[in-house]
């Protein structure tokens, strides 16, 4: 009982600052101290968010199933489009970076072969590839996914290389004395030993991918959350901009907690999650 009260108190405490800020914000807007066009009231934003979430048309059983209708709202479609790009781009980027990183980490010759190129390309922010990607791929999904691939590729690559290089020599010696072949060594010793690093890379990679997707959608695509908030600006729909930003934040949170779960699952053997 005491415990529940304590926890209730803790969460109330956490709400204190946001509630005060919201109250000030609400006050400023409703009393027209700031122009609602610039800063709409929180209630207006919530109303807009709800509207953006709900299906645009009335339910018509002859057209679609109930679930399909329920998820036919503009926000759901935008979020899906953005997520799709992030996931595909991230998976492609990781699928390229992981084997290359493993090879570069394990083999000095391959490392020397690729490292100069990587050192030149890596400092270029993925956003700087936007003009080139539009030139090469036109508009729509291809340039956006290309940018996300780049955004995810380098963090995964660098961390995989570091992970393989930091594999404790004692594991390699133990495996060799047990008779492990090259392949076994690679798949059952180096790769698992490097997973803490690789997962850190994946986490940074998907974070970068999420930033890149929003920017890419503002420039090269005409749907998705990034496109939507920029479109809303054209119409001075500040409530929709903020509602869209809120959705972007929620999606980022969902991605992060998904990565967290994956981390905990894959590293359940690890002394302390994260570093050690």
């Amino acid at each position, binding site marked *: 009982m005491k415990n529940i009260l304590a926890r209730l108190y803790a969460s109330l405490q956490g709400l204190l600052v946001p509630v005060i800020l919201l109250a000030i914000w609400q006050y400023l807007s409703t009393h027209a101290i700031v122009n609602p066009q610039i800063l709409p009231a929180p209630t207006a934003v919530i109303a807009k968010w709800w509207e953006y979430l709900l299906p645009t048309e009335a339910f018509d059983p002859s057209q679609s199933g109930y679930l399909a209708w329920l998820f036919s709202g503009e926000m759901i479609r935008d979020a899906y489009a953005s997520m799709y790009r992030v996931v595909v781009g991230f998976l492609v980027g990781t699928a390229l970076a992981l084997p290359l990183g493993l090879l570069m980490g394990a083999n000095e010759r391959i490392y020397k072969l690729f490292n100069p190129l990587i050192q030149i390309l890596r400092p270029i922010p993925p956003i700087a590839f936007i003009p080139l990607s539009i030139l090469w791929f036109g508009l729509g999904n291809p340039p956006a996914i290309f940018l996300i691939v780049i955004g995810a590729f380098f963090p995964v690559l660098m961390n995989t290389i570091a992970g393989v290089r930091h594999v404790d020599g004692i594991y390699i010696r133990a495996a060799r*004395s*047990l*008779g492990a*072949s090259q392949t*076994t060594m690679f798949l059952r010793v180096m790769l698992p030993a490097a997973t803490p690093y690789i997962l850190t890379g994946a986490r940074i990679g998907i974070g970068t991918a999420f930033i890149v997707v929003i920017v890419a959608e503002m420039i090269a695509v005409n749907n998705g959350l990034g496109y939507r908030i920029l479109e809303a600006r054209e119409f001075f729909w500040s409530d929709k901009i903020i509602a869209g930003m809120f959705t972007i934040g929620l999606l980022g949170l969902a991605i992060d907690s998904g990565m967290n779960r994956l981390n905990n699952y894959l590293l*359940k053997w690890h*002394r302390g999650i994260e570093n050690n």
Partner: protein
Amino acid sequence: MQPQIHISKVNKVFSTGGREVVALDDINLEVSPGEFICLLGPSGCGKSTLLNAIAGFSPPTAGSIIVDGSAVQTPGPDRGMVFQEYALFPWMTVEKNIAFGLEIKKQPKARIKEKVSELLDMLKLQDFRDRYPKDLSGGMRQRVAIARVLALDSPILLMDEPFGALDSLTRRNLQDELLRIWTEFQKTIIFVTHSIEESIYLADRIVVMTYRPGTIKRDVSVAIPRPRDPSSVEFNDLKKELALLVMEEQTRHNQQEIRMPAAD
């Protein structure tokens, strides 16, 4: 009897930063099948270097090491290695760690399972089958490491201060367990230690090494019948004798350390 391990004129020189360290100098040693040998000496006298050369991790600069009739080239499962740091794979459960060598050998699944169960029983690890190494105590980890090399049926066990990090009670338990395993399976064991008492408790022969260059100072046979009682008179007489030998080397170690503070 034909020696199982034949080490002759082995030299090992490390050169780091322009300085040369003669880690092993003219080592000659023959080990018969089933013998329990302890390499004894203060730290830095080349015990690990010799063991690693026999294991095939780091070949000698000169000389030859012949095991079961053929020269050592690479590490291999015929010489099971137990490390002081356990070297268990932390991402594998206890069961998987023990099974790893058998999986490498591509043994049938049922056979692996049977063998692993046998070893879990033998080393009293049944309750830890599905645990990860991080959840085990040092003593338990070393049991797993021993089970892992026993799974391979290696005729030779090479052990580098395997009990050095354990408390004295756990240490004594594992020493007894090791002697039991050694008697039952008739392994040849080369066991590195810097504990005089441990070497007398375990070994048939104690090879005392010198410090820089690492040579064999004395090769002492231990005639005390097992189980050996560390409080007995013969045990303590031998202990005094060995302590004198080791102390001489320890003193040389300290003197050299003063002259070359960067060493080691």
